């Protein structure tokens, strides 16, 4: 009764994947490979060996976190496009704290780094959030514009005070051994960050689904006016969602520094913050959805890079598939909204665009 079954979310996402495969068969054929073979290489092969399977989890770790960060903000109707910058600030904090905690045992050093990264990410998020709540300034623009600023800050540090004194490369000094995330599986790159991501997502799911604060957040995202009328402090809710979102993105930065790079580098994030938006959208802003979407994109990324070697096709085809998948999913969500809402309800004049996704998935 609530949702017509052909348009249920799982069916929709699977349809999006199938449609994507049909559409991307063209470019793959043009690259001189068999589409079927390519999809097997993209999706199935990474899951067939322990090494690649663990690599999928490693690749998914940052986007699990940024996906969760973006999804929380979007659910509140706060369009945080700044996860990339917030991630970089978290990374700066981790690199800074990581070099200073050499004397401390990991049990103290690691929580300090995670907390520091979360605070830094939230701090980077607070200015756009306050501008939005106090003055109604569009956060899409302000959060987006702070991303390159954060990258400049990283490069400024790396070319200035933090330049590696030994090698002279624009990289920060290696963090203390006690500040490195331990690996979870012998002889793999899978590190504590993955576990951290799962814990963060579980907590986020619980808060959204089971607590009054989560219900207030959802209510605010679905109808700010209705929420305010019911006595919910909409400004505080938006601010809270923005800060939590920034903090989680910051933790993604910590995870990459402490788990992978062990130092701050200019190429730390190949756009994990932006991929987080893709993951959140594909995951229809729910935590289980975000988890599946992040793992799937991780799978595709690992698969695409090995397919590049085995099939001799450009590794960018993985990004092409991801991009088409995003567009297909958004298109299907739009079609579903059109189909499942009775015409008289559609006359209400809901704002278009991404805002609809929040309403779409939360019912």
């Amino acid at each position, binding site marked *: *009764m*609530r949702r*017509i079954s052909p348009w249920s979310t799982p069916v929709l996402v699977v349809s999006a994947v199938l449609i994507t495969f049909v559409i991307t068969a063209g470019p793959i054929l043009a690259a001189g490979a068999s589409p079927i073979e390519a999809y097997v290489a993209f999706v199935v092969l990474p899951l067939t060996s322990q090494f690649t399977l663990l690599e999928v989890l490693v690749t998914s770790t940052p986007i699990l976190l940024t996906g969760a960060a973006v999804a929380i903000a979007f659910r509140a109707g706060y369009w945080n496009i700044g996860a990339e910058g917030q991630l970089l600030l978290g990374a700066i904090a981790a690199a800074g704290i990581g070099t200073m905690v050499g004397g401390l045992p990991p049990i103290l050093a690691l929580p300090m780094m995670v907390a520091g990264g979360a605070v830094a990410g939230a701090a980077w998020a607070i200015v756009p959030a306050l501008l939005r709540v106090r003055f109604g300034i569009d956060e899409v623009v302000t959060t987006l514009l702070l991303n390159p600023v954060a990258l400049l800050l990283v490069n400024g540090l790396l070319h200035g005070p933090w330049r590696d004194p030994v090698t002279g490369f624009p990289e920060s000094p290696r963090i203390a051994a006690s500040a490195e995330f331990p690996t979870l599986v012998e002889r793999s790159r899978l590190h504590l960050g993955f576990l951290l991501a799962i814990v963060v997502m579980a907590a986020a799911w619980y808060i959204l689904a*089971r*607590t*009054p604060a*989560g*219900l*207030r957040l*959802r*209510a605010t995202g*679905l*109808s700010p*006016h*209705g*929420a*305010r*009328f*019911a*006595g*919910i*402090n909409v400004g505080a809710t938006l601010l809270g969602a923005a800060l939590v979102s920034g903090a989680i993105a910051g933790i993604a930065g910590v995870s990459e520094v402490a788990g992978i790079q062990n130092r701050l580098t200019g190429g730390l994030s190949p756009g994990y913050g932006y991929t987080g938006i893709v993951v959140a959208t594909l995951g229809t802003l729910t935590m289980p959805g975000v988890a599946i979407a992040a793992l799937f994109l991780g799978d595709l990324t690992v698969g695409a890079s090995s397919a590049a070697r085995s099939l001799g096709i450009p590794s960018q085809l993985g990004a092409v598939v991801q991009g088409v998948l995003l567009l297909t999913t958004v298109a299907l969500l739009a079609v579903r909204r059109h189909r499942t809402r*009775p*015409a*008289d*309800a559609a*006359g*209400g*004049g809901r704002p278009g665009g991404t805002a609809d996704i929040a*309403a779409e998935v*939360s*019912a």
Partner: protein
Amino acid sequence: MRQPLRARPSRTHSRQRAVTDSAPALELRGISKRFGSLVANDDIDLDVRGGEVHALLGENGAGKTTVMRIAYGLTHADAGEVRIDGRPLTVRSPRDAIEAGIGMVTQHFALVGPMSVAENLALGRRSRGLVLDLAEARRRAAHASERFGIRIDPSATLADLSVGQQQRVEILKALSRDCRVLILDEPTAVLVPAEVDALFATLRALVAEGVAVVFISHKLAEVRAISDRISVLRRGTLVGTVPGSTEERELARLMVGRPDFGIERPPDARPAAGDSVLTVTDLHATGTAGLPVLTDVTLGVRAGEIVGIAGVSGNGQTELVEVLAGMRRPTRGTVRVGGEELAGGDPRRMMRAGIGRIPEDRHASLIGDLSVAYNLVLERLDDFRRGGRIDEPAIHAHAEELIARFDIRARPDDPVAALSGGNIQKVLLARVLSRNPRVIVVSQPTRGLDVGATEYVRSQLLERRAAGAAVLLVSEDLDELLALADRLIVMYEGRTVGEMTRSEADLERLSMLMAGREAAA
């Protein structure tokens, strides 16, 4: 030429003949439409002739709007055919309908707020060439205003107009596209009596020129006053098409399947006495453009009393309710409940002080995509927590109880947006009344509701009055005010301009006050 609302104008024999002889301008054949398991229209046949006002009468959810949305291309039929002048018409979208000469004024206006009336009218027309000819649009607006007696300033900004005035712009828009079949969906829902008279005069001018008017309504009196023929829908099926002169009693029987309706207030047992529970003193507020919307508003409501606010829409009633609901900050003045000063308080503050709030926009006051159960507890989530988490079983039980008590046709987990208007209003009513507020601020409580739901809502308000609540009732429906209120206060241009007890109230005096003229006596 103006006809009083209640009095049925007698039609001349020749007029009746002319109507009967003309070919149907709009024909619907076998229209069926389902929304999921709901049958909105079941094999509906209808013909509307040029030069007649044809009413579509029925309760909410009877399928009146749906069938006309199909004719206008806003909804697609599962089966059936639309014909214009006897020729089948494929209506894929409103564009097809507009080109065939069908116009529709829906309840949700398709107007651009920041633009002027003339610009909105220009937007409504198919553009010829690249340059927007505003002078032409303004001229057409003025011409149409004059020709159809719809007075509106073409250069006024749309957002500054009242809902009633915006509706006039919508009608003008349809007319300026030279439509021959004009569909009006509940057009009087936003109008006061004087405006209704003006609208009816306009409609009569239109039918005199051969336009076919489809008038969707659930109000018997006005349907009888304006219609040549009345088609009655009940639960998706056409019950019958009857002459406009059919008795109200008969119409009601066709519409709801039961002869008695309406509510009579019991005679005053004990007039309320004592101090006011809700006191508003010298209240001022400004609107979007910094213009005053409330000036020197002063009123009081005692326990066990219903005070009605009468007035033409757009004279500050909405803003007054917003201030009392905590949704608008006044610039000056006091709002007190039981001595506690509340002016400028947020919604939470107002609720804590014991104000129950039921504003006119019931959809925006709830969260459509959340469940009925959540909406019922949203104002008091802290009462439904166990430890740090939401107490889902308690919320569910609470919803079950209120659903039974307030006769809400829904399950706890249904999203509010899936409910009918009457049930949405009941959800809001249940949320407010279940907290036993000492003050109830309620605006347009029965607008758009069917007979059964209207009766229910009114009886609930009377019950609260009997239980000692102070009720401030804002309504554009004078019958409703006269039926429910102990005292009436008239608002005009943001001021309280007159006050009278119900026994003193008469239509003449109220109309004068509502029109901004000082009462003689």
